């Protein structure tokens, strides 16, 4: 699986956990199911670093479908995907606000497996 073409900055790295399917974000140290913990790359060097992490995690069979997502920053500096698809992916189904991350429901144990 290849990493998609690099989107405009700033970007975050997301993927799905291999075992549980949960959408996870690279924090700089580990994969977290919390979008708020995503490491934000503001420059090309940072984005290249995220791509390297994606390749590493895919090769290590930790995650699947890893790619960079361009974001804007909210008032508190948190990353919000610019595209509606990725926004839904980081929140959960828009028609079921009681499900997914938006409801605090994770398909994965908080600290890995």
């Amino acid at each position: 699986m290849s990493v998609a073409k690099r989107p405009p900055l700033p970007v975050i790295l997301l993927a799905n956990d291999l075992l549980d399917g949960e959408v996870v974000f690279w924090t700089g140290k580990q994969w977290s199911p919390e979008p708020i913990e995503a490491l934000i790359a503001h420059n090309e060097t940072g984005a290249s670093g995220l791509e390297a992490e994606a390749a590493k995690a895919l090769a290590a069979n930790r995650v699947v479908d890893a790619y960079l997502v361009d974001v804007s920053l909210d008032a508190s500096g948190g990353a919000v995907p610019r595209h509606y698809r990725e926004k839904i992916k980081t929140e959960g189904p828009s028609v079921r606000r009681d499900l997914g991350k938006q409801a605090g429901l994770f398909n994965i144990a908080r600290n890995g497996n």
Partner: protein
Amino acid sequence: MYRYDEFDARFVRERVAQFRDQVARRLDGALNEDEFKPLRLKNGVYLQLHAYMLRIAIPYGTLSSRQLRQLALIGEKYDRGYGHFTTRTNMQFNWPRLRDVPAILDLLADVEMHCIQTSGNCIRNVTADHFAGVAADEIEDPRPTAELIRQWSSLHPEFDYLPRKFKIAVTGSAQDRAVIKAHDIGLRILRNAKGEIGYEVMVGGGLGRTPMIAKTIRSFLPKDELLAYLESVLRVYNLEGRRDNKYKARVKILVHEIGAETFSRLVEEEYARLDGPSIVADPEEVARIAAYFASPHYEKLPARSAAFEKGKAKNRAFATWAAVNLFAHKIPGYAAATISLKAIGEAPGDVTCAQMRVLADLAQQYSFDELRITHAQNVVLPHVEQDDLLAIWQTLVEAGLATANAGLITDIIACPGLDYCSLATARSIPIAQALAHRFADQKRQLDIGELNVKISGCINACGHHHVGHIGILGLEKSGKESYQITLGGDATLNAAIGENLGPGLAAQDVPDAIERIVDVYLAHRQNGESFIESVRRLGLEPFKAVIQEKLHAPA
């Protein structure tokens, strides 16, 4: 209903064990994702937007109470308390963990179910008329044929890696309720001049990015030649179908490129070369399968049920539901009841585990333990005594399942769309919900009459938008969701692909546009014409103005 014999049971169990091993090898790194993906797809496991998704085959849409209860159990234990019925009469769970899938498959095998060939480039779950065995105009129950094809096509060594997926649908009635002309192969059971039963074989239908209506390549195929003939069709496709471009790999493209006549000639040549008798099923086996679909032991009942008539006279809501959601049964005193999974504001086809249990109990108590799933994402109780309808309806009301809208404008087909699906380009469910709210008024729905609205969230067309009287296709335009509206599609034997009314609209403009289209129909209809009849007579022009109005309206 069909019951597994020892070979079926062993086959499914072996497949579960095989997949358990494949998952273990994926997790320990022996298989990478590129190697694992085709294996998981062959077992119905997709990776969607938020999680994995498991697609469970419901062969020809027939379920027992026990099977539906098991689905409820799986939904509660391993998912989020609900499931989703699809336009291919499968059930999808949206939140399973990969690590749990082998255990889920074991639970399915316990009730003679599986996920085999619900994805991948193989022959998929075979679908059939949801009123099979019920309809008075039926020549023969299509399900023994569908079951025979299921057995023949399961892990068929030659057809396990086709150029693309392959879908077969069967109907045994004069009316097509299985959208057979939008399938790779559509089979229509019919009688020839001598009164013998056989099949009209149609090939090359399909929706997706290149919608096509199937062409008849054999107007009468003797019944006992079916599997050998299908083998010839599949062999021609397997050899001649394009593998260089996945978007041109379906059999519809091959039939279109070489023409139905040439395709038919190639099939007949292949058929002449085949050793037919070695392929067609043993008549004993055909009879064994057919016996499972024998009619249940109906009671001898008067055609008119006094209790039913009294219930309708006393309760207007029940009378409306009965008028809209019941289908005439071939046996006097019985009815088939459509249970709508399109309550106003709900996601089409979604059903909670609690509702599954209610449906299972109703089927056990009132419908010979049998349920049907329809391609329109509803459930049918196929054989209920009219005397029992009021009690059934009362239970449905309590469970939020008594919506009286079968075939009406709020009985909307919608794919999961971008709320769940990683392929989607726009959301489908919110559009369906907004339309259902807009047309919620029962009297207005009845006045509008039969009108099929079908919504897909991408060009793959799982929501059958091409054959909707009104079709809605969600796309992305400049970073926003945009909805194209098509008109004049038809999913019956008069199959037609809807035509685009104009440029896409923003989500918030769709309900107004649909309402205006309906207004144009109401203003122009003559002599009780249905919506689709009016569209055929009037053409697209009177309706196109609606889209232009919306596009140019001040924001």
